[in-house]
């Protein structure tokens, strides 16, 4: 038997539009300032909703009446990410570029408009369906390779990144555009409001007085490519025949040459299901702990190797308490520093995994241990390593990113350097 290893996959480009602005520089600034983009919105008044505080993208002029915000946010994020990775993408045939879309509601704006008999374009109607939105995004950005639309509640983004890596490692693509998108809608805010899951004051992850989440909206995109430090010996009987044709060394050399610092790579992942409740987390954290252990196993790492955990941190009482328990289950009394980003950008649902992973990657490059915006008083039971305000980090070699979602789904992703 000839041995082989699967190629690590690097993040070659990032783009985002969300409550703290558009572009990676806006994200970096928010990371440094521990900023929050959550504000009351006239669109979601207290008369009808439990809270008016949301993480909204600034929309002015014509954009304020956009009938296809999912398309607008996704294309802006993809434009930014593709621009950063332009030299690499231009060297790859279109049929070797794939796209994975992560979304929970795609362009649900169209359903609201059609129900209310308001104007709605045919493309906006078409983008009610995530797979068609994904296909149109792929066509617009020259990706004629494999296209997928992943939708797993609030874990969608992490699973989409995982799928992007898998497509590259299976040899069916050399690069994959992974884009997460969800937009604020009466549909979603009314649902969380009906569940009494919103914090009237805006979410306060891991805070003693936390009492709910704040919905957000975003488009977030990454360009995934085979990493520069690939060493592959291919097994001749490997099922995915296309893998036998890789690697093309010039691609990996270009990935290495264009950076003054090592690229961030996706080292491993894990997912699990609580099999317990549709909307509430299991109290013992066992499901999330299983996902974390699976991710550590896939990355061939021990828990001590994790330098920072970016938790899901919805700021609902039960979710945050469950995460404390899961972290204790895995790390014992030596929990690494951990934080949450939803006080910065809100809960961006299908975009959350991609957007928060981008924030993690930027923090790694900045050697910054990010804080937890809007956290004032540490929650009872929180591990002492909870990070409230940003500080410089001596080491961020391995970062664990967590998301959990309705349906009991848990996801964990591990980032490292190439």
């Amino acid at each position, binding site marked *: 038997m000839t041995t082989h290893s*699967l190629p690590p996959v690097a993040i070659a480009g990032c783009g985002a539009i969300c409550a703290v602005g558009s572009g990676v520089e806006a994200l970096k600034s928010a990371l440094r300032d521990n900023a929050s983009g959550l504000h009351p919105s006239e669109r979601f008044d207290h008369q009808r909703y439990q809270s008016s505080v949301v993480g909204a993208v600034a929309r002015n002029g014509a954009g304020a009446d956009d009938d296809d915000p999912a398309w607008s946010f996704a294309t802006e994020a993809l434009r930014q990410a593709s621009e950063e990775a332009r030299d690499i993408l231009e060297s790859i045939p279109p049929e070797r570029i794939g796209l994975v879309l992560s979304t929970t509601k795609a362009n649900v704006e169209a359903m609201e408009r*059609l129900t209310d008999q308001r104007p709605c374009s045919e493309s906006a109607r078409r983008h009610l369906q995530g797979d068609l939105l994904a296909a149109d995004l792929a066509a617009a950005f020259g990706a004629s390779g494999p296209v997928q639309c992943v939708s797993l509640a609030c874990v969608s983004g992490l699973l989409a990144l995982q799928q992007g890596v898998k497509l590259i490692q299976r040899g069916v693509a050399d690069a994959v555009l992974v884009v997460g998108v969800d937009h604020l809608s009466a549909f979603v805010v009314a649902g969380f409001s009906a569940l009494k899951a919103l914090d009237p004051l805006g979410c306060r992850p891991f805070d003693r007085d936390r009492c709910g989440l704040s919905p957000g909206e975003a488009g977030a995109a990454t360009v995934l490519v085979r990493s520069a430090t690939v060493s592959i010996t291919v097994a001749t009987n*490997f099922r995915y025949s296309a893998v036998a044709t890789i690697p093309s060394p010039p691609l990996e050399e270009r990935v290495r040459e264009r950076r003054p610092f090592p690229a961030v790579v996706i080292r491993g992942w894990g997912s699990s299901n609580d099999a317990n409740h549709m909307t509430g987390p299991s109290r013992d954290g066992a499901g999330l702990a299983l996902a974390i252990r699976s991710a550590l196993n896939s990355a061939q790492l021990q828990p001590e190797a994790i330098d920072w955990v970016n938790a899901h941190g919805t700021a609902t009482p039960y979710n945050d308490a469950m995460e404390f328990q899961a972290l204790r289950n895995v790390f014992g009394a030596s929990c690494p520093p951990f934080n949450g980003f939803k006080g910065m950008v809100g809960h961006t649902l299908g975009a959350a995994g991609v957007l928060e992973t981008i924030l993690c990657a930027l923090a790694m490059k900045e050697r910054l241990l990010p804080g937890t915006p809007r956290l004032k008083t540490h929650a009872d039971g929180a591990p002492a390593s909870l990070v409230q305000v940003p500080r410089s980090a001596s080491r961020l070699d391995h970062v664990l990113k967590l998301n959990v979602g309705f349906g009991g789904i848990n996801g964990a992703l591990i980032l490292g350097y190439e």
Partner: protein
Amino acid sequence: MWASAESTVRSFSAMNDLVVTAASLVTETDLSSSRLGPRSSRLDLASRLALLAVESLASKFDTVPRDRIAICLAATAGSLSTDVEYWKGWALVGGPSPTLFAYTLPSAAIGEIAIRHRLTGPNLCFVGRDAELLAEARDLLYRGEADGCVCVSCNIITAEAAELIQSSPVITASAVFVTAGGEGHRV
């Protein structure tokens, strides 16, 4: 993952073919005679049909540890049919149903299947056709992320949802349970 490549290749080579150990196909009319229990009346149509499709596979689950069984689902038009039902509540006093809101996700049926059969392994859900399901199941087994995979295809487009997306109504669900070995139909 990378360091254990040899063992994963070996195990993958030993399972050149996926083995379908059980399969089922159900339609809306099958729901009337189903025995899913009282809880099922609270579920959306997609979850009830998916549960029913998986029900006849359940006897095979005992061949694999429950935390090693993955669930992969493909949902045509996502959760649009449930979305339409939920959104009708917007015009009502009291607003939309919080119970139904939990099912306005394409992946909702995964949660119900996991709860009913205590399956705690990995999950994956695609919006769109089911063409990729077996490939993804194969990948999960190959990488050692799971030892068995429940693949579910939900084609749920009610008449109202069909009108919204200018499509044709369809209400069916099918499921297969695949493993890397054992008795069954090789694919």
